[in-house]
């Protein structure tokens, strides 16, 4: 059967069978190695990241290389598949540098001439999960002009960037400088990565200081700006899928709990005032799925609509994730306010995510420009 033409041009908002299989593999891994008590114990330790989990996720299942072409050592899949991985990581608030390394840093490098030896070599390392790279910009940065470019003096990188997500676990920093994009090894002399006390315990931030640090120049100024823009666009677009997964967990867990919790000789989930709030949340989650799939599909197909699809997904899904996490706490009552219950990990992740790669308000301003609804 041939569907009407217009429907053919519409983005594919469903999940393919291969995507479902990928989801099942990731979910099963996370159920084994990353349940809520494990995450809680880890974030309180000095080692929030689990190297064994990263190896299994990135290398064994092969998710780190989804965006990277096979000839560069990746899986040659795309953003739709990476989005599914992020849904699952969001669902378990896993402390894993997937969004920062396998999406933002990887996409930034893919925007550069990937046949260049240092870029190709680094991409190969990231794709297999052997090494982790992060873009040295604040996690809140939505565009290259929000970065804090370092300087370059006699070939060495000089500067300071605050609020860099996952820097503490990175092997390589991709540093935007006034002289283009540099790759700087975190073990190099002159590089210091100082952990910050972060709102989101599952995605720690750090301050990166570079004092005459030796680095490899990957791109000149203009290429660096467009590469960073592309990396941040992919990050914002796929963050929506993480927010979707997170919101889904909050809803599922709240429904489960309110079905079991009894007060006034009834399950509290039988009270309309609670049911309506959960039904409303379900509607938001269903809508967030359409918005997030639309952004992932646009990124995957290189649609000219990509900037709009990403901005719409971020303007919508940020709010849904925060709302879901807030409702989760409220509808759990007292237990939701305790440190022991994992709901707070989701609230903190959701709130941090709503600032990451630009707030909803920032993305609405982008939309205003793209669809010509100018401010007064």
């Amino acid at each position, binding site marked *: 059967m041939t569907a009407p033409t217009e429907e053919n041009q519409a983005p594919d908002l469903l999940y393919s069978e291969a995507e479902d299989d990928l989801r099942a593999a990731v979910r099963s891994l996370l159920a084994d190695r990353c349940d809520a008590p494990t995450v809680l114990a880890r974030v309180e330790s000095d080692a929030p990241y689990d190297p064994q989990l990263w190896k299994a996720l990135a290398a064994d299942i092969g998710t780190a290389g989804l965006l990277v072409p096979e000839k560069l050592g990746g899986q040659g899949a795309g953003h739709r598949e990476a989005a599914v991985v992020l849904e699952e990581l969001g669902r378990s608030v896993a402390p894993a540098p997937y969004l920062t390394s396998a999406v933002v840093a990887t996409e930034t490098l893919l925007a550069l001439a990937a046949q260049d030896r240092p870029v190709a070599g680094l991409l190969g390392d990231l794709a297999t999960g052997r090494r982790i790279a992060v873009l040295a910009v604040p996690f809140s940065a939505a565009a290259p002009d929000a970065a804090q470019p370092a300087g370059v003096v006699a070939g060495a990188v000089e500067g300071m960037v605050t609020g860099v997500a996952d820097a503490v676990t990175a092997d390589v920093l991709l540093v935007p400088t006034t002289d283009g994009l540099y790759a700087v090894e975190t073990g190099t002399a002159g590089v210091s990565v100082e952990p910050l006390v972060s709102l989101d315990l599952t995605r720690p931030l750090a301050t990166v200081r570079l004092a005459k640090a030796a680095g490899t120049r990957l791109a000149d100024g203009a290429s660096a700006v467009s590469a960073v823009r592309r990396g941040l666009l992919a990050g914002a677009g796929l963050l929506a899928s993480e927010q979707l997964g997170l919101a889904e967990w909050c809803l599922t867990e709240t429904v489960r709990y309110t079905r079991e919790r009894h007060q006034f000789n009834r399950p509290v989930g039988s009270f309309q005032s609670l049911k309506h709030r959960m039904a409303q949340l379900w509607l938001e989650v269903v809508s967030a799925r*359409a918005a997030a799939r639309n952004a992932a599909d646009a990124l995957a197909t290189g649609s000219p609509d990509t900037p709009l699809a990403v901005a719409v997904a971020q303007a919508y899904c940020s709010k849904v994730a925060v709302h879901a996490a807030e409702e989760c706490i409220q509808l759990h009552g007292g237990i939701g306010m305790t440190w022991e219950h994992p709901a707070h990990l989701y609230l903190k992740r959701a709130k941090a995510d709503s600032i990451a790669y630009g707030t909803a308000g920032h993305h609405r301003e982008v939309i205003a420009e793209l669809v010509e609804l100018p401010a007064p």
Partner: protein
Amino acid sequence: MTTLDADELRRRTQDLLAAHPPAATDRTDFLKARFDAGLAWVHYPAGLGGLDAPRSLQPVVDAALAAAGAPDNDPRRIGIGLGMAAPTILGYGTDEQKRRFLRPLWVGEEVWCQLFSEPGAGSDLAALGTRAVRDGEDWVVDGQKVWTSSAHLARWAILIARTDPDQPKHRGISYFICDMTDPGVEVRPLRQITGEAEFNEVFLTGVRIPDSRRLGPVGEGWKVARTTLMNERVSIGGARIPREGGMIGPVARTWRARPELRTHDLHQRLLTLWVEAEVARLTGTRLRQQLVAGQPGPEGSGMKLAFARLNQEISGLEVELLGQEGLLYSEWTMRRPELVDFTGRDAGYRYLRSKGNSIEGGTSEVLLNIVAERVLGLPVEPRNDKDVAWKDLAR
């Protein structure tokens, strides 16, 4: 036997067009010929306007007919017949009822309306009090129905009435086909907050309905009605729209054309609603893709909720954006429109009419209960009306 694939349907459509060239054929004659060729609704049985073909093949026929400039049956005018009466007749009617009613219904010769809601039975429809009492081969019906669109144009109505008040409310209802030309049927326009009367009140006084016009067994009318209502919600939430195709379109165009009306506060609210309208549109697209892929999800129940709220908020913003002009209204003259036109009228009308979107076809509050209980599996509210005879219920 020929396989009914897309090519075969295209061939049959071309045969129809060749035998009855649209340019040289009366509109109704063409529609009758189309019905008789089984190309009206291909998933219906042969002999009843269909070919027992998959429903997904209907667009093949529609596209070929549209390309040839053939007339359609003006589905907006006969929406209740097509969307609600027909599936119910098909599901529960006798062979004789199907043969008698489906063809003139589809062709549009006979308009249908729906006699369900009553002044005392809105959300709690099963509590309805219109009585049908058996008298020989007939039922005698007395009562009052409300919110009946097209009642003043309709030849027939689908009607639910109480046949056994001693049973609990869901069990004593039967389902009938009511002749709207019966002398006991009185239709009065029901004027709404918009000033016009898009709906009617229908008073039934000693209306005689032959038992041969009952749909489904006596006392099982509620079960039959659920078929009708399920189809109503599908038709309310299912339409495809382009970007800025809904109520956000007019307000976005006003924003672009009239810079003098812009304020910062309105800008923030407009952008928020624009995003929500776009996401609702994508959610509808995804729902349709699921249906095409044969994975129907429960998302449909949510679409009506989303559009009701959006229509209300967007039209409210639009009136405010218009400022001084928002203080005016086009006209309060009482009219009886044949079709409801949501976007072709001014902002004030849209604002007032959309207040009904969260009431008609299931209030938003009832729909939230349905999502909570049937989709999320939350426990039902304890209730005290299920096992009590209808006559003993509080009213």
